[in-house]
């Protein structure tokens, strides 16, 4: 009895603690960006059309378009900000090693700051209309010791062009109050004014535009008006842009993001089905714990039948007995809540808390905890009603004489409750296994190149702003000196990214009859040795050579998939930029986007003299290094060597300005959300299963205790220990089979919905189902054996004699 009670309290406590932590996360996600001022009145403008020859949605508008929107009568304000910000290295005289600021440029500072509800606590916000002046959050100011008048220099990733020296540093002129944690602006350290384009420029699309409407207008009306007026304006300025506009309110951006967007939506992104699934897991976990508790209380009934009815015979009122039962449940629950608080405290200070995207500290989310405790109290009340009524529903005389220990009604109820737990366990195990398989698939899928011993570095753009030449070859030679680094290749941007531009072009040269000359593809600018260093196999034609760099137009190597799609040959050429480059070969297909997206036609582009290394063409500086290490080198030594070489090569570069990472780390970051989900589902499934099986353990202990005499009699009549264990297990295995038949399609349904997020996904292997069944069945049999062993193996004579 004490063991079983303890198991139940621990189960309840774990359930309450984990449910709290899940609900903190769920609340964080459901309320994301909702607390931003007028979150339902401010909306991001999204264009839908045929962009860059491929993508369907575009998040950017040209400077002229922004001005155009601003002049639509129903518009109260227009603002431009990148809610995700951009990480930029910065340093001050006090802190020369530097730090990283998450910063966004803003257009129309007064309107933008007002639209999003920036509250200033120091300085003057009107100064932000001047280039270089920056408003900084209170927390960033404190963290980096910045105050009004502090100057900091940008150390890397400067988006700000260098046409004016003043752009190389920022001056803090205002400090704003921190935004809540659960909004994009909560992660922003600083904002600064930026406006580089001509007001009449319809071509350069650089701005994320938010609009706030005057009272009485809806976004649907605005979408319709903007689409119509914009089409008229395009006719007027003689452009052929055909765009249908739609707006997404700031408060809905987290969940309501169209898929397949070039350069992505400038807001954090969540998946509503995942959030709902997590909430469902929390509810299920609480239910499982209370099912255990109900089972526990029901199991106690036979033991208490005698005492309860003796009290009735002695004159105690039924109401009083029932109230005692209910009070007992509440006390039980309060103990569980106390243990739960302890668990939360331990978890919030441990590595497990990193699983959650927000802090699980009770002090920050007391309301959620109180709600869960209230819900648990309600559960406890409801759960205590049935046994309280049941135990007091018999005639006292009958109950004192009768044997209610294993009444068919009670046994049936317990079987149903245990069945519910099995069902939940099956669903969670199957879902967790498929999430794990999908994550494994994401990380281990053949990407078309060799990932072993591959490191990447993204160097500060400034370091490559060297007129007339790039320092690549010399840097590569220095890195290779000493034999640690085998080879180095360069590219413009990350190799595997969703932020990849697609271009629509015309194929030049011979094509099969009826083949279209139009092509949509993503050109990826690389150094001539990129394919060689990354181990991308050429399947037709040849690899790039150093001559490509000296040529006028450079050269292209397409993937096999692109070749088949567009009937390409090495006799064709395509112009990734201004002039046509010959296709010199075809390579194996590579995964250059996340597996969420279709890969599309892709080409490596080795630029020639017309585009590359020419004064004034600094935009194409290839500052992403892909470094293949020599086999057998010490990784820590290699990273130290690379860092030292880069710092020596670029005097003045700060250590914080760049990272040296394994390619797999970069890849893992790309699938961070999936990895976290996998861990969470796995962990929660584990918790639910542990709590369920703690309950099962307790129930079997009781069942076996009640069956003690039957077991002894069976043994006297010839049953072996194994026969009894088989008998006990088979009762649960039958329930398992039924539950599995129900659970398998439910789990498949869940996982199908989740896998819809991915263009490339793991197959639904049959063995996952078999493994789930086997795992649960083995657990059940194991629990039955462990919990019944003492009773089953004791001398049956002793049991029979005890009864007699």
């Amino acid at each position, binding site marked *: 009895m004490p063991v079983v009670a303890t198991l139940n309290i621990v189960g309840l406590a774990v359930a309450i603690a984990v449910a709290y932590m899940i609900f903190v996360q769920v609340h964080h996600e459901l309320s994301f960006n909702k607390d931003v001022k007028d979150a339902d009145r401010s909306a991001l403008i999204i264009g839908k059309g045929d962009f860059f020859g491929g993508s369907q949605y575009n998040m950017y508008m040209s400077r002229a378009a922004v001005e155009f929107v601003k002049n639509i009568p129903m518009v109260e304000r227009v603002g431009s900000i990148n809610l995700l910000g951009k990480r930029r290295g910065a340093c001050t005289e006090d802190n020369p090693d530097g730090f990283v600021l998450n910063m966004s440029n803003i257009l129309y500072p007064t309107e933008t700051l007002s639209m999003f509800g920036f509250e200033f606590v120091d300085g003057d916000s009107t100064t932000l209309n001047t280039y270089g002046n920056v408003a900084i959050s209170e927390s960033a100011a404190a963290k980096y010791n910045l105050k009004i008048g502090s100057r900091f220099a940008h150390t890397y990733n400067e988006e700000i062009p260098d046409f004016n020296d003043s752009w190389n540093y920022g001056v803090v002129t205002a400090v704003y109050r921190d935004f809540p944690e659960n909004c994009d602006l909560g992660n922003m350290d600083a904002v600064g004014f930026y406006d580089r384009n001509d007001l009449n420029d319809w071509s350069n699309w650089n701005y994320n535009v938010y609009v706030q409407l005057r009272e009485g207008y809806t976004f649907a009306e605005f979408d319709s008006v903007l689409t119509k007026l914009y089409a008229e304006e395009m006719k007027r300025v003689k452009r052929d842009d055909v765009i249908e506009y739609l707006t997404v309110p700031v408060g809905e951006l987290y969940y309501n993001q169209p898929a397949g967007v070039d350069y992505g939506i400038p807001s954090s992104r969540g998946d509503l089905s995942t959030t709902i699934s997590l909430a469902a897991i929390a509810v299920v976990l609480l239910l499982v714990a209370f099912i255990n508790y109900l089972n526990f209380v029901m199991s106690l009934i036979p033991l208490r039948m005698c005492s309860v009815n003796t009290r009735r015979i002695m004159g105690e009122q039924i109401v009083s007995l029932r109230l005692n039962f209910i009070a007992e449940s509440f006390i039980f629950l309060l103990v569980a809540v106390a243990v739960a608080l302890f668990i939360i405290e331990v978890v919030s200070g441990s590595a497990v808390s990193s699983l959650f995207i927000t802090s699980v500290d009770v002090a920050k989310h007391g309301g959620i905890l109180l709600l869960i405790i209230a819900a648990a109290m309600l559960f406890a009340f409801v759960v205590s009603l049935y046994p309280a009524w049941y135990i007091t529903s018999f005639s006292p005389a009958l109950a004192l004489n009768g*044997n209610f220990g294993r009444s068919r009604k009670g046994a049936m109820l317990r079987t149903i409750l245990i069945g519910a737990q099995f069902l939940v366990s099956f669903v969670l195990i199957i879902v967790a296994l498929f999430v794990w398989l999908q994550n494994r698939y994401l990380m281990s899928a053949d990407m078309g190149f060799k990932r072993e011993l591959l490191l990447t570095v993204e160097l500060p753009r400034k370091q490559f702003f060297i007129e007339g030449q790039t320092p690549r070859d010399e840097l590569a030679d220095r890195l290779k000196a000493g034999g640690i680094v085998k080879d180095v290749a360069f590219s413009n941007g990350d190799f595997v990214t969703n932020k990849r531009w697609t271009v629509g072009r015309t194929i030049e040269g011979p094509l099969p009859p009826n083949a279209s000359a139009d092509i949509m593809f993503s050109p990826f600018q690389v150094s001539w040795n990129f394919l060689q260093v990354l181990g991308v196999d050429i399947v037709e034609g040849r690899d790039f050579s150093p001559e490509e760099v000296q040529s006028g137009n450079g050269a292209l190597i397409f993937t096999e998939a692109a070749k088949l799609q567009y009937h390409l040959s090495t006799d064709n050429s395509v112009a990734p930029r201004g002039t046509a480059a010959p296709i010199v070969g075809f390579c194996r297909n590579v995964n250059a986007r996340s597996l969420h997206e279709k890969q599309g036609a892709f080409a490596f582009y080795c630029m020639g003299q017309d585009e590359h290394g020419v004064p004034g063409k600094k935009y194409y500086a290839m500052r992403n290094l892909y470094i293949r290490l020599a086999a057998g080198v010490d990784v820590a030594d290699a990273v130290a060597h690379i860092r030292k070489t880069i710092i020596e090569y670029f005097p003045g570069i700060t250590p914080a300005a760049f990272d040296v990472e394994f390619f797999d780390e970069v890849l893992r970051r790309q699938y961070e959300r999936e990895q976290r989900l996998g861990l969470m589902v796995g962990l929660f499934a584990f918790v639910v299963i542990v709590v369920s099986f703690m309950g099962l353990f307790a129930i079997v202990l009781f069942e076996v205790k009640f069956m003690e005499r039957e077991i002894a*009699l*069976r043994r006297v*009549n010839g049953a072996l220990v194994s026969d009894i264990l088989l008998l006990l297990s088979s009762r649960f295995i039958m329930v398992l089979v039924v539950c599995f038949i129900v659970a398998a399609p439910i789990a498949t349904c869940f996982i199908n919905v989740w896998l819809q997020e991915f263009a490339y996904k793991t197959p639904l292997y049959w063995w996952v189902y078999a493994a789930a069944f086997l795992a649960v069945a083995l657990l059940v049999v194991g629990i039955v054996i462990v919990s019944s062993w003492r009773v089953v193996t004791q001398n049956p*004579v002793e049991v029979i*004699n005890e*009864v*007699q």
Partner: protein
Amino acid sequence: MKLLTENLEKVFRTELVETVALNGVSINVNDGEFVAIMGPSGCGKSTLLNILGLLDNPTAGSYKIDDVEVAGLKERERTAYRRGKIGFVFQSFNLIEEMTVEENIALPLTYLKYSSAERKKMVEEVMLSLNIAHRAKHFPNQLSGGQQQRVAIARAVVTKPGLILADEPTGNLDSKNGSDVMSILSELNRQGTTIVMVTHSKKDAKYANRVINLFDGLVVDTLEEQM
């Protein structure tokens, strides 16, 4: 079935106490014999019966069934040995409350791997012979004490064992039902079944061919009964 014990000892040990239940018991039971074991409470009657039924092992001494030494067999071996060969009848019937009459009777057959049809046939036969067929679908708590004991006897004999061990089979019955039960046991004995019965009742002991008296774990005398 022939039983022979020599210097059988059984000692129960706890941390504090050592209790000698049997202190060198030597008895023999011939094939087809009906033997009653009598003696005051605590003299070791039930302990001896349990050892004879292979429900327990002696601490020392020899026990042979049909000339085969069975003292010291492992639990699994004892179970295998007694399956179908030894039937038990208890004072408090020891029926399983959740099973019907026919399910209770069929229980030993389950472990002898009889088919369902065979079990059904054998159970029906024994229920008819003991006049309880009309109660086949009833649960034990729906039966009188006499009927429950008939069911217990039916369960003991359904496998047609060579030996029936009865531990105070009439102890919980009125005299009418007690007599009926003893008549049934007598009839089984007449049909060739060896019976060893522990009893306090001299009346019941008269049904036996022989009475063995125990006192403090020792056989004090053996009397041939005359029915």
